[in-house]
């Protein structure tokens, strides 16, 4: 019973948690409170009347809509390297959203230095969701695939763990579950959500999914929302709009990347990433903490 309760609770948290954090209105207060854990790892106390039973789709439903994607969308991300201070809130939020161990990174903040004469800077590196992905080409079972809204997803019900996609990715964007995933017992019995890649499964691959499950709920990805320094912009190329995760302002995507002289990583490899970087101009502020 305890495990059943825990698993229902966990399932409720995963889908209901997003409902809670989206709730800005206060419904009628009955005084009956419950403590919940949100998907970004915070404990919140809410009124029980604010909880709606979460409709958890079946595995097949998850798979079908996950493989199809969100129609009419073309997701892009812009990362402003002049603003990154290595706070690593993005990494923390991501790891708790996706049941990751501390050494597993869907997004990794790297310290880069392009030449001896230039200053070092911090570069967050999620999966770049390439338009010519080297990883999906080599998967023998179509467990990783690009869907119509641009996101490269992973199906951990199908992955056989051959790790060819890790070998193929030039950006080191993928990780593997070498052991049982973190807190595996807590997630037992939870229906696999392909858009969050949760629960993680031992022996399969994992990577950044642009928080496809949150996108479906109309929210920004975990890393984008968690950043305190205004580094991330995320949005839809079809609408030509990207929103900043910190300031919440929305600007034209094409204007942002062309005026900001944005570039993509290792363009000459021909992968055509969907993540654009604004150059680390004027990086003079010190890093927010020594994480070495």
């Amino acid at each position: 019973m305890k495990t059943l309760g825990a698993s229902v609770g966990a399932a409720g948290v995963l889908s209901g948690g997003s409902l809670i954090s989206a709730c800005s209105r206060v419904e009628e207060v009955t005084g009956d409170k419950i403590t919940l854990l949100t998907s970004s790892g915070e404990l919140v106390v809410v009124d029980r009347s604010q909880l709606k039973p979460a409709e958890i789709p079946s595995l097949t439903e998850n798979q079908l809509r996950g493989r199809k994607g969100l129609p009419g969308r073309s997701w892009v991300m812009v990362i402003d390297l002049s603003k990154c201070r290595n706070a690593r809130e993005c990494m923390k939020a991501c790891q708790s959203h996706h049941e990751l161990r501390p050494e597993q990174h869907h997004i990794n903040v790297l310290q880069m230095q392009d030449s001896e004469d230039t200053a070092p800077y911090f570069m967050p590196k999620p999966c770049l969701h390439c338009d010519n992905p080297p990883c999906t080409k080599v998967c023998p079972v179509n467990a990783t695939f690009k869907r119509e809204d641009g996101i490269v997803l992973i199906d951990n019900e199908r992955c056989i763990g051959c790790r060819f996609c890790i070998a193929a990715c030039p950006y080191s964007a993928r990780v593997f579950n070498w052991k049982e995933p973190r807190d595996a017992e807590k997630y037992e019995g939870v229906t696999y959500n392909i858009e969050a890649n949760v629960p993680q499964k031992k022996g399969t691959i994992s990577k950044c999914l642009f928080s496809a499950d949150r996108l479906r709920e109309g929210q920004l990805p975990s890393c984008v929302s968690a950043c305190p320094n205004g580094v991330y912009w995320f949005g839809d190329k079809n609408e030509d709009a990207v929103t900043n995760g910190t300031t919440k302002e929305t600007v034209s995507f094409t204007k942002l990347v062309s005026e900001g002289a944005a570039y993509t990583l290792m363009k000459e490899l021909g992968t055509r990433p969907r993540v654009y970087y604004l150059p680390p101009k004027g990086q003079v502020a010190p890093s927010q903490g020594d994480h070495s």
Partner: protein
Amino acid sequence: MQKIKSPEESRKKLDKIVSDLTRSILLKDELTRFWFFILIMFAGVGIWGWILQIKNGLGVTGMGDYVSWGLYIANFVFFVAVSLVGLLISSVLQLLKISWAKAISRAAEQIAIAAVALAGIIIVMDMGRPDRLLNVFLHGRFASPILWDLTVVSTYLTISVLLFYIPLIPDLAIMRDRMGGQLPPWKLKLYKILALGWKGNEQQYKTVYHALRVLMILIIPVGLSIHTVTSWLFAATLRPGWDSTIFGPYFVVGAFVAGTGALIILMYVYRLRYGLKDYYTDMHFDRMGKLLVLVCLVYLYFNINEFFVPVYKMKLAEGVHLKTLFSGGYAFMFWFAQIVGLVLPILLIQLKFFRKPLPLALISVLILLSAWFKRYLIVIPTMEHPFLPVQNVPESFHHYSPTSTETLIMLFSFFAALLIISFLAKLFPVISIWEVAEEQGIDKAYLSEKPNSQ
């Protein structure tokens, strides 16, 4: 071919050939029991290691998110390489009408079958989810090099088994007819069934020759494909050290070097153990030595292309890779493989002394060891230095160190391959009896005689 006239001489010669070449089947001494005991024991320990790995995940190995392919894949490439000796000896040399290759063809096929079978097994042992193996057949994507590899490897295994079995049929008939008193009944029954009622008439021999010719021609594109496609598992990626256009032919020629070395060692072991000096003659070793020099020279040419050209340019990422091989952590392995495993054999085998059986076999051991080092060097160093810096991960991710469980599973593959070869030698003659008889001018009619039971 010698022309032997008298029936008594023919029969006596045939008896000697049969008794020599069935020694591997009949010999049952302490060494045989000890050998099988060691093989089965180590193979069993390896299987236990694999069970541990299935239970606890691939984390029991030294692999991490950066070096995600390790010993198992290095072994896979090594086995595919060694298996190409079947193509070289049974097909290419025989189509070129090189008659001395006939005697060593069956041993070459033993190696080919054992190696390619273990290549398939070690891949399954490397999978994160071996329970989902069926997905490859249910959801296979033919755009993936892994599917190409699966196709050509299974085809090569099939053709190699046929190339082993079809010329074996006349031998099975000879043993079925002559060895009643010497064999346990189950073995005799096995030969009877597998001999498919062979009578040894003209029509049947014609069929065998025809079938062999078809198989020998078919195996050429398949055999060339298996190691080319295996090389494309690496060349289809963008990584420095793998992003090379010559990987296909480079691997194929390297395979011939490794396979020839392996065959020489096996020839020497059989010659010593089963007293087969008259079949694996000094001439055979001399010719194999010269073949070894030929393939080593071509491989040296490819190595020069593969390493000299990038070192001339020193592109950023390639430069890091080359520095690791030439002067970094892998320098010993690299230079050992190139000098001891390639340059030294080319020079030494020029001398007649080193084309004698024992010296040549010892050089072949060095060549085989270097071949394994080379495959390790192909897989691991590239993964240790990807394009982007390796940061925020445990120390163990930065450098690959195989664990003991991983090593046990890797060793399983070698012992299992030796087990397959040993079983094949225990069941079937290691050299083709009827082809040797043919070479020595014994008429085929004598082969079908059923002498009175001994």
